C-alpha cells in the first residue's frame, strides 16, 4: 500500500530523494523565470502566496516519497504474516485513513483561512466583525469527530478481544498436528505452549509440554496457534516479533501471556483465497502457501528498556513445518554427542584420568568448556551429563543457530544456511570480547564467575588466550 517499493529499498529511496531535489530545483527556477524575466509583476501577489504553498507542497511530497524507502524490511509491521499482526495492521490502516482525511480536511481549511484572510497592505476597510462563536458549528464539528472516533472504536474493540483470547482451534491442538509421541500427560488437547523467560539480556524458551528448553531462537510450527507464557527473572522486558504479533511485556511477578500464530489456518486461508479443486488439492495449495510465505526466519527484539544492553537483546523465530518441528524436538532431546562419536561416559573417563589423551582443537575446546573456562557452570548442553548450568542459555545444537548473543552476532546466509566462517568469527568475538559485544553481561563479569574474571593459581587475572578462544570456538562449532 501507499508507495511501497518492494525492490531494493535503499536504491529506490535514493532515487526518490534525488527526484525531489530535482523537482524543487527545476520548479523554483521556472517560477523565478516567470516572475522576473518575463516581468509578470502584476501577478506578484499570485506568485508570492503560491510560491510559499509550493515550497510546502514539495517538502510534503519529499516526505511522502521517503515512505518509498524500504518498508518491507526484516521487522516491518507492514508485512503481517499472522492473524494477530494482521488484525493489528488492519486497525493501523483504519486509523491512518481517518487521520489522513482529517489532516487534509482540517489542514486544508487552515491553509485556506490563512491565505484568504491575510492582511493586505494598505487595507483601510473596517475591522472584521466580532464573531464570538457559532454553537451550531461547534456541535456539528464535535458530532463529526465523535462519528470518526466510532469508526475507529468498533473495530478496535473487536480486535482487542480477538488478539487477547486464546483461539479455539482444533487443528492447533497438539494431538492434531504434533508428530512425536512425547507430549506431557494431559496436554494433548492444548495448543503448543512456550514459556518465554526474559533475562538481562537473553531469552530462554521452554517447551514444558515437550520437556525441552532452548534459547534466543524460537522454533514454532506454521499455521498453528501457540501460547506464550511471558515471564521475567529480573526486570521488565517485552517480546516483539512484529510480523507475527504486537508486543506484550514480560513483567517479573506477573503472569502475562499472549497467543501468536505464524500464517493462517487452512480455513482462514481458504476464506481469503477461495481455492478451487479437490480437497486434497486445496490442502496441497495451503501447504505450499505455508512453505513459500510463512516458513521463514523471523526477527524480533526486546522492546522495553531493560538496562545497559537492552539494544542488544534480540531474538529470532524460525517457523517450520510440523515434521521439521517434531524432528527438532527429538534432536534437542537427544542432545549433542561427545566429540568424534565417543560416548560421554568414555569421554569423561578419559577426561578424569588421562585428559592428555584427548587432543585436537575439538577435544581441547571441550576440556576448556568443562574446565578452565567454566562454561558448564552456567550453560547446559543436552546429552553432556556434566553440562547442566541453568544461569545462562541452553547451548544444545548451538551451531545450528544463525546468531549468537541473543541475535546480535549473525551468521546466516541469504539462502538460509549457516555461514561457517562468519560463525567462527562470531564465536571468537563473543568469547574474547564479551564485554564489548554486550556491555554489562554476566558471562563476562559475575562476582568472580565470569570469563572476564578468570584467575590463575596465584590469584592473578588470567583471561582466556587467543589459542584457548580458538579451541572453544572450534568445539562449539561442532554442536550441530
Amino acid at each position, binding site marked *: 500500500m501507499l508507495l511501497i517499493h518492494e525492490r531494493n529499498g535503499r536504491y529506490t529511496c535514493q532515487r526518490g530523494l534525488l527526484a525531489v531535489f530535482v523537482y524543487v530545483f527545476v520548479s523554483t527556477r521556472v517560477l523565478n523565470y516567470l516572475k522576473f524575466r518575463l516581468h509578470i509583476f502584476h501577478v506578484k501577489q499570485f506568485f508570492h502566496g503560491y510560491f510559499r504553498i509550493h515550497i510546502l507542497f514539495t517538502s510534503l511530497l519529499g516526505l511522502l516519497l521517503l515512505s518509498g524507502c524500504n518498508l518491507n524490511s526484516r521487522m516491518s509491521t507492514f508485512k503481517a504474516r499472522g492473524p494477530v499482526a494482521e488484525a*493489528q495492521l488492519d486497525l493501523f490502516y483504519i486509523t491512518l485513513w481517518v487521520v489522513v482525511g482529517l489532516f487534509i480536511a482540517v489542514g486544508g481549511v487552515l491553509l485556506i483561512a490563512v491565505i484568504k*484572510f491575510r492582511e493586505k497592505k494598505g487595507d483601510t476597510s473596517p475591522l472584521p466583525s466580532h464573531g464570538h*462563536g457559532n454553537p451550531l458549528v461547534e456541535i456539528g464539528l464535535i458530532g463529526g469527530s465523535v462519528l470518526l472516533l466510532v469508526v475507529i472504536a468498533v473495530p*478496535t474493540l473487536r480486535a482487542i478481544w480477538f488478539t487477547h483470547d486464546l483461539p479455539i482451534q482444533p487443528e492447533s491442538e497438539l494431538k492434531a498436528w504434533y508428530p512425536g509421541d512425547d507430549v506431557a500427560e494431559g496436554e494433548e488437547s492444548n495448543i503448543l505452549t512456550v514459556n518465554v523467560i526474559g533475562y538481562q539480556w537473553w531469552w530462554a524458551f521452554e517447551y514444558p509440554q515437550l520437556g525441552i528448553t532452548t534459547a534466543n531462537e524460537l522454533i514454532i510450527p506454521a499455521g498453528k496457534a501457540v501460547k506464550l507464557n511471558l515471564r521475567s527473572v529480573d526486570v*521488565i522486558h517485552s517480546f516483539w516479533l512484529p510480523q507475527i504479533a504486537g508486543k506484550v511485556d514480560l513483567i517479573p511477578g506477573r503472569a502475562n501471556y499472549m497467543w501468536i500464530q505464524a500464517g493462517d489456518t487452512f480455513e482462514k486461508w481458504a476464506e481469503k483465497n477461495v481455492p478451487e479443486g479437490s480437497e486434497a488439492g486445496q490442502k496441497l495449495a495451503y501447504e505450499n502457501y505455508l512453505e513459500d510465505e510463512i516458513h521463514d526466519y523471523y526477527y524480533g527484539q526486546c522492546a522495553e*528498556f531493560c538496562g545497559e544492553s537492552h539494544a542488544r537483546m534480540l531474538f529470532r523465530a524460525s517457523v517450520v513445518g510440523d515434521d521439521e518441528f517434531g524432528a527438532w524436538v527429538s534432536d534437542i532431546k537427544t542432545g549433542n554427542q561427545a566429540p568424534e562419536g565417543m560416548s560421554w561416559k568414555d569421554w569423561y573417563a578419559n577426561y578424569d584420568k588421562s585428559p592428555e589423551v584427548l587432543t585436537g582443537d575439538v577435544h581441547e575446546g571441550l576440556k576448556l568448556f568443562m574446565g578452565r573456562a567454566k562454561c558448564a557452570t552456567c550453560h547446559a548442553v543436552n546429552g553432556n551429563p556434566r553440562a547442566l548450568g541453568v544461569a545462562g542459555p541452553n547451548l544444545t545444537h548451538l551451531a545450528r543457530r544463525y546468531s549468537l548473543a541473543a541475535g546480535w552476532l549473525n551468521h546466516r546466509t541469504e539462502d538460509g544456511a549457516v555461514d561457517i566462517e562468519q560463525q567462527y568469527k562470531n564465536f571468537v568475538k563473543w568469547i574474547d570480547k564479551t564485554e564489548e559485544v554486550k556491555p554489562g553481561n554476566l558471562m563476562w563479569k559475575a562476582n568472580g564467575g565470569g570469563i572476564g574474571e578468570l584467575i590463575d593459581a596465584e590469584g592473578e587475572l588470567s583471561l582466556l588466550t587467543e589459542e584457548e578462544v580458538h579451541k572453544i570456538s572450534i568445539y562449539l562449532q561442532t554442536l550441530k
Partner: protein
Amino acid sequence: MSSTITETHTTIEHGQPHVLKPERSNLGLMRPDHSKSVIVDWLTTVDHKKIGIMYGALALFFFIVGGIEALIIRAQLFVPENTLISAQTYNQMFTMHGTTMIFLAVMPLSSAFFNFLVPLQIGARDVAFPRLNTFSLWTFVAGAIILNVSWLFQAAHALGWFTPGGSAAGMTDMVPAGGWFGYAPLNAAEFTGIGTDFWVLGLQVLGVASLAASMNFIVTIINMRAPGMKMMRMPVFTWMTLITSFLIIFAFPAITIALAELMFDRNFGTNFFRVSEGGQPILWQHLFWVFGHPEVYILILPAMGIVSEILPAFSKKPLFGYSIVVFSGAVIGFLGFAVWSHHMFTTGLGKVATAAFSLLTMAIAVPTGVKIFNWIGTLWGGRVRFTAPMIFSLGFVWMFMMGGFSGIMHSSAPADAQQQDSYFVIAHFHYVLIGGSVLALIAGIYFWLPKVFGKMWVGKLNNWVALVIVIGLNVTFFPMHFLGLIGMPRRTHTYLSGFGWDTYNMICTIGAFTLAFGILLFLIDIYRCVKKGEPAGNDPWDARTLEWQTSSPVKVYNFAKTPIITARDALWEHKYGAENRKITYEKEDGHGIHMPSQSWFPLIASSGFIFVGIGMTMRHAGVAYMGYVAIFGLLVLGLGIALWALEGPGGYHLHPKEDAES
C-alpha cells in the same frame, strides 16, 4: 503569625524609590529591600516579573543542555553499530534528555509565562504569596542542581576520584539511566546505582516547587482579580494556567508517593516493588502514569493558552468560542486523569481495562479537536498578520495537529501493540512537544519579550528561525513514524545494519542538527532584541489583553491604579469598544501602592533541599555521615520556613507619578 499592622514605613512622595531605606523585620534582621547590589536584589526578589525572567533564563539554559544531550543521541545513532559513546552513557543521555526537557525546560518555561503574565492579565500587583513564589523558583533550582550534579560524580568516577560503596557498590552509573519514567524493577538498588537516587530526589524536589507554585497561582487567580475581572472575562492564558495548576496539585502526589516508595525500597528495605517479597512492579507504572498523563497536559495546556492569545491578536478578531475553548481545556484536564493506562497497553491489563482506556483516550481527542476548530474559526473572517508570534502559532496549530493524529493512532490498543516502545511513539510525542509546546512557547517569547525588556525584535530573522525549526522538526521526526513501523524499538544504544533502519536514522540525525541550528538562530534573535532592539512601547502589537496597557518594561508595581474591568478582551474594548466598556480606575486612598518586602528565607529554605538530595544519594553510596547531612538539609528547610513565617510580610509603599497611567 502574620500581621499587617507592623508596616508603618516612611515613604517618600512622588515615586523616588531609590531613597527608600530597608527596614527591620519582626525578627530584628534587616530586610534585603532596596538593595544596591544587583545580585542581592535578584536573589531575594519576590517580584513575579523578576521571578518569571529567572525561570525563563534557566529554562532556556536547560533547553540547550537537553538539546545537546539529544544531539549526542542522534550522533550516536547516525550509523549502525556506532561507538561514539558507550551503552551506559547513551542510556544516561536519553534519560537526562527526557527528564531535562520535561522538568527543567518546558515546565519552567511555562512557569516563566505564568509568573510574568498572570498577575498582569488579571490586573493584580503580584501573586497571592510572593515569598512562596520565590521559594518555588529556588526549589526548582535546587532540584535542577541535584539532577545535574550527577554528571560531576560520573566525571569524578571516570577520573578515579570517586567509587560508590555501600548498597551501590559495583554499580558504575552515577547519572540517572533508567529512562525518564524509570520503571521498576530496573530502578531498584539491585539494578541501578546512585544515578537513580539523584533522579528520585531531584524529581521529588522539583515536585515540591511545582506544587507550591500551583497553589499560589490558584489562589491568585481566584482571589486577586481586579474588580470587574470576572472569571469568564479572564484571558484564556490565565484560564489555562488555572487548569494546569489544578492538574499539578492533583497529579503530582501520585509521583511523589511513587518516588517516596522507591526511595524507601532503595534505602530502607521496603518491598513496594520488590518481586521476591510480593511487590508488584506494575504498581510503579500505574502510579507514575497517573501522574505522567496529566503531566503531558500540564505541558501542552499553557502552550494552548499562549496560542489562544496570539491568534486573536493577529487576526484582529476575538477568540472563536471563548467559553467552549475554556470548557474544553477543563474537560481535557479532567479526562486527562482517566486515560493513564494507555501508556500500559502492552502490560497485559486484560480486555476490559484495555478497552476502557482505549475508548477514553479516543474521547479525549474531541475537546482537543474542538480547540483546533476554534483556533481556525478565529482566523476565519479575520485579518491575519504574519508577525513572528503569529507564524509560530500557525506552525503550532499545524504541527500539533500532526502529533495529535499519531496520538489517535495510538489510542487503538491493538494498533498500539505494534507502535508502543518503538520510534513511532517518539515521533508522536516529539511532534506534540516540540511542534506543540515548544513552538507555542517560542511564539509566546516573540509576543511578550518586548513587554518584558521593552525592546522590539530586530529584523526578520524570525522567519528563518521558523523555517529552519519547522524543517528540522519534520526532517527529524517524520521518518521516525516509519522507523517505528518497520520495527525499530526505542531507547536502543545502537542497531544492526540490514533492518532497513540505516537511511532513516541518518536523515533523522541530519534533521536534529538542523533543528539545533534553528534554535541557535532563535537565541541569536533574542540576543539581538535585548541588546539592540528599538524601544517597544506599551502595545507594539495592538493587542487585546490587559498586560499590554502597562509600560514596557513593566513597572515594579504593575498598575499605578487598580483597573476596573468591564469586558472580556479588556484592552481591545478600551481602545476600540463602546464608551461603557472602557477601563476605569479605582480612586487612590492616599496610602500609595503597597509592595511586598524581599526576603532571604525562601532561598535559604530551598537550599536545604540540596543537602537532602546529595546527602541521601551519598548515603546510598556508603559515604559516612551522609544521612546526617540529609537531616541537616531538612532542618535548614524547616528553620528557613519557620523564620520566614516569623519575619512577617513587611512591605513598603510607593507613590508613582500621578500622570503615569501604568
